[in-house]
């Protein structure tokens, strides 16, 4: 089958289209076989021809190409499956966990692993496996939700800054620079103090996570806004933006309907990296006692609990540490694979 490459469209979509000659010759061949069939009517041939041609030229989109390359990368694919597995556990934590995260059993304090408690219990008799499962919920929620918030904030901020340009751009980027020169953990903690003292009348369960969430979202968008701004600056020079503008599209429409869909690749790569660092930061915050507070469970809280009994019961800290390690590893490998799959040109071979 002869196919020729029509070329990358302005929006980067690679459209593979069979050459007309090839289609015509094949259609003719088919028409000949059809001629033996009585139901075939030559008058419909033209319409039929076009329809079939349209069917056959189904483009291989950028997304599909990426997916295909990602599937070929075995490590990245296994990581993706693992991430999906952890996500499922996180979503259905309430149904999977054998015990509640706060249920104490005074008869079984620091019990070794057994049939009723697969990973044993902690110093208050709480089931470690259940706490680990609820911890997955918090960690994944923090990772994904903060990434979403910073995705929206960073994209909008960066797009506006890059699109308007000039003095507004300089000012907006100076703000980002200033925020960026406060070390991340310090900024996190400052926002956390603020949040904790403002909202006194909230549902404690929501409040426990919300402080960490907000704190992580506040700094998370900085890097993304830089990336988006750079990409928007580049996109401003392209032909498709010029043509959209010449057709009278509004600024908002150009930014959100034309530019942003075209810079999804770099955005996704940054956001994946963001999820990794957010999960890590959450557990660090909780570990040093400034994040989530017990009885709520996150992997950092569990590690902090386990630290007290490291000498006698090392499994209490190894288990959450291992869970975090495996998740981080999966996200890192998947992120690398995604970057390579998205843009094979930049793959560092």
């Amino acid at each position: 089958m002869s196919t020729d490459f029509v070329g990358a469209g302005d929006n980067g979509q690679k459209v593979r289209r069979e050459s007309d000659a090839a289609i015509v010759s094949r259609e003719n061949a088919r028409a000949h076989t059809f001629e033996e069939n009585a139901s075939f009517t030559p008058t419909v041939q033209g319409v039929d021809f076009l329809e079939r041609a349209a069917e056959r030229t189904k483009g291989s989109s950028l997304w599909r190409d990426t997916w295909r390359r990602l599937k070929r990368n075995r490590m990245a694919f296994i990581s993706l499956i693992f991430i999906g597995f952890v996500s499922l556990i996180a979503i259905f934590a309430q149904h999977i966990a054998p015990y509640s995260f706060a249920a104490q059993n005074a008869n079984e304090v620091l019990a070794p692993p057994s049939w009723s408690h697969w990973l044993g219990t902690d110093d208050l008799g709480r089931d470690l496996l259940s706490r680990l499962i609820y911890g997955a919920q918090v960690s994944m929620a923090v990772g994904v939700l903060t990434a979403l918030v910073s995705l929206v904030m960073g994209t909008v901020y960066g797009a506006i800054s890059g699109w308007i340009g000039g003095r507004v751009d300089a000012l907006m980027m100076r703000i980002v620079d200033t925020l960026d020169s406060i070390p991340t953990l310090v900024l996190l903690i400052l926002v956390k103090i603020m949040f904790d003292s403002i909202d006194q009348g909230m549902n404690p369960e929501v409040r426990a996570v919300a402080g960490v969430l907000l704190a992580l979202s506040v700094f998370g968008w900085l890097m993304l806004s830089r990336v988006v701004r750079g990409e928007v600056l580049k996109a401003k020079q392209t032909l498709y933006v010029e043509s959209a503008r010449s057709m009278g599209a509004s600024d908002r429409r150009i930014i959100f309907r034309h530019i942003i869909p075209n810079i999804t690749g770099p955005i996704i790569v940054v956001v994946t990296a963001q999820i990794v660092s957010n999960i890590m930061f959450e557990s660090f915050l909780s570990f040093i006692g400034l994040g989530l507070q017990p009885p709520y469970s996150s992997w950092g809280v569990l590690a902090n609990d386990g630290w007290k009994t490291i000498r006698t019961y090392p499994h209490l800290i190894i288990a959450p540490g291992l869970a975090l390690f495996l998740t981080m590893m999966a996200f890192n490998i998947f992120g690398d694979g995604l970057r390579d799959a998205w843009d094979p040109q930049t793959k560092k071979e």
Partner: protein
Amino acid sequence: MTAEDIRRASHPVIRQLGIILPIAALAGIVFTAIWSFAGFLIPNSVIIGDVVLVIVFLVFHATTHGLTGYVLKRLMQTLFVIFTIASITFFLLRVIPGGPFDENKALPPQVKAAIDAKYDLNAPIYKQYISYIEGIATGHLGYSYTYVGREVSSIIAESLPASMQLGIFAMILALMVGIPAGVFAAANHGTWKDNVTMIAATSFISIPSFLAAPILITIFCFGWNLLPVALWNGTTFYILPVIVLGMQPAAVIARLTRSSVLEVSRSDFVRTAKAKGLKQRTILFKHMLKNSLIPVLAYVGPVTAYVLSGSFVVEDIFNIPGIGKHFIMSVTNRDYPMVLGVTLVFATMLILANFIVDILYTYFDPKIRLT
């Protein structure tokens, strides 16, 4: 004085200053670090000497490469940014309801008034702000709420050295392990050696310090009884925290070095060198390494600042009396002057590190222009 003048100078030492000065500065820092790692107390004069060496090198490089204007501009900007951060954090902490002394509800009004008067909390907020900024300008960061009667600056001065030591050791370890590992992986590109190195690097990036630390402690402290579990009193105390803190930067540096060495190895000047029949080693060390260190530099700047200012988690785990621990304490105790002071110190370090890295860019790659 321009680079051209230096090149034409009569004395060979002057001609080579561009190499002698950075090596001297680097050697000074490494020597001091080894000396201190051996458990000796470093006299202040040596530390000042190191700083002077670095500054001399930076000034020399800036003047000979026409960067003086840029450096002055950046210094002004730095002052402005520090001022902005100080103001923002000040107002953020004052605006939020609830003060550090609200916990004890039974506080008699007289006592409360006395405390407020002592810490100057009755004055209108703009007056507090002015005195606060004045204090920063003169190096006074106010009095701590929790350590009664102690100045924040003296607490910082006391706890910063341990954090700096830990950070410098960890960074040296990271560079010493990371760069060779990256070059090794790139040199064996595509083989199992490369794969093993990269898998190891990815796992070191993913391993949280509260998993690495317990494993190492269980092996070296409880199992073999070789090293102490915590504290910061000498060589044996330094080993584990430095490994735990340096592990992740080392892995990132290895990955960056590998990819940038591979990129450089495809460039024209390397092909020329190969065509000339130079030895593999000469090409690697004389032609490629300096060029491939630029992406590494971009990472090393901020991470040095982060590591120097004390990794909170590692200091917490190993109970090191550093500044990170004080910061956590001050946050839980709502010791606002302390929070403000530590934030300022951290921010200053980060800004300075980025500044130095920007100047170093032009050293490693003269084509880069700073504006």
